């Protein structure tokens, strides 16, 4: 794993000097990595996720999703704390406590039903709130689209939301095979929930790399700002009218 990151960092230094548009300085590299990930997905991840959906009843898949989702909540809460959103942080911690106990180890998401909504936070967003610039867009092997900032936060985010992967003398899961099993299961669960999305990208766009990139960047910025991001709509049918903003939804808080 470390070797991959090292090789990748070296590559970035080289690739950064190449000719590419300013908003996407790593575009040539990103495009090839995008298609590499796509081939890998077609060959391995997608078929496995499809098989998983085919053989597993829907309620069981929901338990699996809930189980991995529950293990994210402490980290989500911690990031809310780091961003100064104390009420949200308490909500997230309560979620974890409720779902881990009454929700049978996180299999059931009773906290959502009890009015404690699930939040969407990670350390990349926290860095963004702290004012760290997002840096160039990059497509990572296996891990997909990221900004440099989010890629830097990724090892921490990934470990904190998958506690069984903590290196060295892991106190939670002793058996190495069980650890790989959990990681694999989490990946399949995540992929299974996105099945069908690749078809939307394939059929709905002329240049899916570009659409995916712009979509990713827009929604990342939206998350960092917790929804307080206006979209500007120009009127191209009426040249006299300038750009203006659409009214924001009242409940901008995510």
């Amino acid at each position, binding site marked *: 794993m470390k070797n991959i990151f090292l090789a990748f960092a070296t590559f970035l230094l080289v690739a950064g000097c190449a000719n590419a548009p300013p908003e996407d300085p790593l575009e040539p590299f990103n495009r090839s990595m995008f298609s590499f990930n796509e081939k890998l997905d077609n060959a391995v991840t997608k078929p496995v996720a499809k098989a998983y959906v085919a053989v597993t009843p829907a309620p069981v898949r*929901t338990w699996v*999703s809930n189980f991995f989702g529950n293990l994210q909540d402490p980290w989500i809460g911690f990031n809310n704390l780091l961003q100064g959103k104390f009420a949200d942080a308490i909500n997230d911690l309560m979620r974890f406590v409720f779902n881990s106990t009454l929700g049978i180890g996180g299999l059931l998401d009773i906290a959502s039903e009890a009015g404690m909504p699930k939040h969407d936070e990670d350390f990349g967003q926290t860095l963004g709130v702290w004012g760290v610039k997002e840096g160039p867009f990059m497509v990572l092997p296996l891990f997909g689209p990221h900004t440099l900032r989010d890629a830097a936060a990724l090892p921490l985010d990934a470990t904190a939301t998958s506690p069984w992967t903590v290196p060295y003398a892991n106190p939670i899961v002793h058996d190495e095979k069980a650890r790989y099993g959990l990681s694999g299961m989490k990946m399949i*669960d995540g992929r299974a929930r996105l099945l*069908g999305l690749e078809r939307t990208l394939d059929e*709905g766009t002329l240049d899916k790399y570009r659409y995916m990139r712009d979509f990713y960047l*827009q929604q990342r910025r939206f998350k960092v700002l917790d929804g307080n991001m206006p*979209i500007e709509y120009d009127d191209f049918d009426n040249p006299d009218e300038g750009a203006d903003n659409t009214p924001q939804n*009242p409940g901008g808080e995510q």
Partner: protein
Amino acid sequence: MTKKLFTCCLLALSAFFAPLAAAATQAPDELVRKVTNEVLTIVRSDKAIQAGDFQKTLALVDEKVLPHFDFRRMTSLAVGPGWRSANPEQQERLIAAFRILLVRTYSNALTKFRDQTIEFKPMRDNSGDKRVRVSTEVHQSGAQPIPIDYALEQTGQDWKVFDVIVNGASLVTNYRGEFAGEVNAKGIEGLIASLEAKNKSLEAGQGGK
């Protein structure tokens, strides 16, 4: 006798005006809620749609959803500044091609709908605004809710959707980057040709899953 006739006239009149009145007072958030609920009820109960019957989904979208979308506005937003340099005939072809592309994408997404639930967020007082944003959230177990907003504009009496915003990303203006790239490289005609070719290639492989 006159009284009876009068009542009859009144009834006939009210029957005639009631739908008009209902249409005029259809608030944008009510419209989104009504259409969403209607469509999802059908999708949830229709085995053919769930099994991926594309033509049936398309027919549903065509009947229930499309009348509430402003495709001219959407296309101009997706094309961006290049829209102004397109002549009316080119604009019509762009609208037609983009419409097909969007409808296919939307219908595809619809067939994936299963056990998710939709929460409609309360809208702030918008009286007087010509443009509003109606917020919803899609809930699914084990995952963060996905915010999906609809941007609507009032044209005449009707409210029409001109953008759908998923997780803060505008599905319409998100096309601008790739469309602008196409226009810069091959001109407006090039963009139209690419869209039409895309639609054609997908039409060929359509019908099944």
